[in-house]
């Protein structure tokens, strides 16, 4: 078999296998920083194992949408993951224009997630769905103003090529990339429902976005949703860590080491952010997102006029 295809398949297996571990590490970091012992790092695996053995309960007013939505969620996220360079390797799916497919395929996930929430017919889920639709709209431009702008500057339209076009040649470009990575981090926080936009641990329905949308799911459905959210977090982690590509040019081994270090550093960063910030009021979230967008635009303009 072709080495690149083999690498791509290994990448997907890594993403699927390691994603819960990554989430567990973030939780552990957060616990340690707040002075608790915290759950073991492997806790997400235990939870998934527990969920899969539970009885599935569907809300009585729900339809086929809430039955197929978890499946679409997971499958689509796996396809999205297959476009990302894990350990700076060439991904399984890589062609000109896959940046657009990546953004839109996450839109498919969102579409069915919102529908599944509205399917329950309860106002809790409705609230979450409306918030998701609103905030997603503000999150969309951030992706294009960061990774999209690198794409426009480099002239590549495939995620793999875009990340591989990053070079440490001149100082203004370096600053540009660093600020882009900050914006991507803010995007990741939003999309993965972490603090300060959403709180994955709260149990008060009125204040949540993602958690409230899956409030009425259980058993295998909840398993699929939870697993998808771990995969999604890891996808955004890869988007972030891939910015370190210039340091890993020498060999595969160095690349993999840098990738792993970057991922661990990212769990630490997420832990710190979640410890020192509190969740914003819903009213202020669009401002937070527009702030990230503004950083992106300003960054792009400054780079264009200083290069």
């Amino acid at each position, binding site marked *: 078999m072709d080495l690149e295809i083999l690498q791509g398949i290994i990448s997907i297996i890594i993403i699927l296998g390691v994603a819960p571990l990554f989430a567990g590490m973030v939780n552990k970091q957060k616990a340690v920083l707040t002075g608790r012992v915290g759950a073991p790092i492997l806790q997400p695996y235990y939870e998934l194992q527990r969920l899969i053995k539970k009885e599935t309960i569907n809300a009585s*007013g729900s339809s086929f949408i809430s039955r197929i939505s978890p499946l679409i969620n997971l499958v689509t996220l796996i396809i999205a993951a297959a476009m990302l360079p894990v350990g700076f390797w060439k991904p399984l799916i890589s062609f000109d224009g896959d940046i657009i497919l990546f953004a839109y395929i996450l*839109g498919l996930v969102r579409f069915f997630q919102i529908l599944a929430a509205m399917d329950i017919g309860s106002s809790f889920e409705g609230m979450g769905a409306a918030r998701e639709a609103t905030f997603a709209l503000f999150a969309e431009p951030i992706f294009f103003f960061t990774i999209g702008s690198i794409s*426009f500057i480099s*002239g590549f*339209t495939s995620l793999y090529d875009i990340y591989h076009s990053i070079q440490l040649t001149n100082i203004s470009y370096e600053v540009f990339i660093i600020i882009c990575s900050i914006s991507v981090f803010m995007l990741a926080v939003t999309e993965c429902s972490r603090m300060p936009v959403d709180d994955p641990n709260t149990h008060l329905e009125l204040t949540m976005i993602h958690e409230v949308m899956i409030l009425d799911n259980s058993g295998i459905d909840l398993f699929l949703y939870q697993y998808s959210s771990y995969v999604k977090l890891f996808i955004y982690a890869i988007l972030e860590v891939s910015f370190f590509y210039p340091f890993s040019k020498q060999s595969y081994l160095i690349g993999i080491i840098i990738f792993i270090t970057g991922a661990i550093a990212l769990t630490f960063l997420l832990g710190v952010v979640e410890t020192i910030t509190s969740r914003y009021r819903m009213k202020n979230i669009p401002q937070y997102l527009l702030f990230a967008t503004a950083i992106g635009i300003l960054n792009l*303009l400054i780079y264009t006029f200083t290069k």
Partner: protein
Amino acid sequence: MKELSDTGNVLLIAAFAIQLLSIVFLSFKNERKALFTSNITMLVGLTLGLISTLSSTLFSSAEITSVSIFSGLIRLDGLSLYFLFVIQLVAIPTTIYSISYLRHYVEQKRSVKSFITFYIILLISTQFIVIANQAILFLVSWEVMSISAYFAIVYEKESEEVQTGSFYYFAASHVLIFILYIIFFLFHHETGSWFFSDYHLSFSSGLMVPVIFILSIIGFGIKAGFMPFHFWLPQAHPIAPTVLSAFLSGVLLKTGIYGILRIYQFIKPMPEWCGWFVLVISVISAILGVWYALAQHDIKRLLAYHSVENIGIIGIGIGIGFIGSANNLPAVEVLGFGGALLHTLNHAIFKSLLFIGSGVVYQNLGTRNIELMGGLVHPAKYIAILFLIGSVAISGIPPFNGFISEFIIYMGFFKTANELKNYYPILMLMFVVGLAFVGGLAVACFTKVNSIIFLGSERSEVKHFHTSVYDYISLGILALLCISIGFYPQPFVGVVNKVIANGFTTGASSALVDIDWLYFTMIFSSIALGVFVLYLIKIKLEKKYGRRNSAAWGCGYENLTPRMQYTASSFADELNTIPKAILDYHKKVEVSENAFPLQSKFKSHSKDFVDSKIVLPAFNVLRALVAKIEFLSQTDIRYYIGFILIIIAIYSMIAFLWT
């Protein structure tokens, strides 16, 4: 005649003859019989027409050869054949649906013959517009199309809403045809010919061509529904019988797009400002169109605003094409025009799918207000699935057809930035973000529509949801097209590429066919396969560990009623509050001051900015002016004869001085 010996031409002429023949069957006394036979004859005619289009050079492996018949009055080149294909393809399902839709009127003892007559004339004249090669024939067809559409729209004329809405359409189409007259008289003045094939003008030859360009954008823009000229669209589409709304929104608007592209062929290559002009108008149309849609509660009005959005997306493609043409970049032209043309087909498909779906719902519930619907997935599962396919497609989300054309347009942006460098990347990035923003809004809008109409529990009780086999056939055809273009885009992209090669580009480029379309087929199939396999596993696990239904979580409160669900207004409220001023979005909350409040009221409403702030005030000014010369209006006919003589004298004077 020599040209009649060709089988393709014979087939096409036979198709038109059979379509006309279908009017004859309306002479049956029995309404039901008349409806059925004339629709079936119409279908045979349309199918024959489609066969002749499919067997033309558009779909063969050879290059497109332009065919002229009737001494050049009719000419079938790439663009004509493509639009003919779009019209016929979409007219077939809408005609099938009309059998079931109009039967409801027959059951209410209403005569449907007048409607069918105008509907048939509308279909035929629309097909004539895109194949006419002579300005007079084009204008006459256009006029017939506008008038027959008007008469079909006012079918339920006793309703006041219909009278206002149809008047908007009537007024707009009259202003439009007046502008078209000017355009073609200018062409005649410049070239001395009425035949389209003789029209070749260049921007370098003075002020005439820019004037023609601006006029054509305004004129055809009114028809297509670009933003400042869209105001008639949300007024006319909701009140038309649903069969007609599907055809109006899906196909008739595209005649405007056809017009713009045709004019482009006459006056290309464009200077670059034309591209930017179209691009900016289109982005505004797309963003505001979908935002207005989000604020609507009337399903058909909402879909009408979505047409404005989609026409905007098509316009973005055309704008990129113009920029490519200005800079002599065939690759950019191919991607821009290719995206626009493919989106024209795609929008025709999913928009008529959605309109027909909304029509089926309307027949059963008797209301267009989505706030009164809900939970229809239980009585009408398959309609819900078909409507869902259309919704995913129109939001531009993979794996259906809407994504394919938007993807081509995105590639057009990237290509433009790559080829032109300089400050273009930043400008193009702005448009990319704009298009992505439109996509996000469309997702919000169609999740709203789907969930409020079909999901949750029923807000008003539906005892028996009636559907007929014709509904399923027409929706099924359209949904199948959505899926097949999404999953296997190569053949459709190939056709579009051929159309562009036939008289659009300045040079050859394979940018469109070079996109790795196979990846899309593979990725989308693997999504479908993955979902299927996971579903089987899920079923197995559910068998093992159990599955049941139980009431939704209500914080311990058990008497949840359908009224407690999230409504369309509350779903969209946060998004509508942002551009409050433009949408003219008003909320009114009445909370009773009682210690034990029993009833509170909430009302939200959005008015069209262009309609309420520009068009209506302008008309009021006009009315005031007209009132000043009202004294001229006399009951005596001799005054009028006098006026006519004076006008003729003035015209002859001008003509005399001119020569």
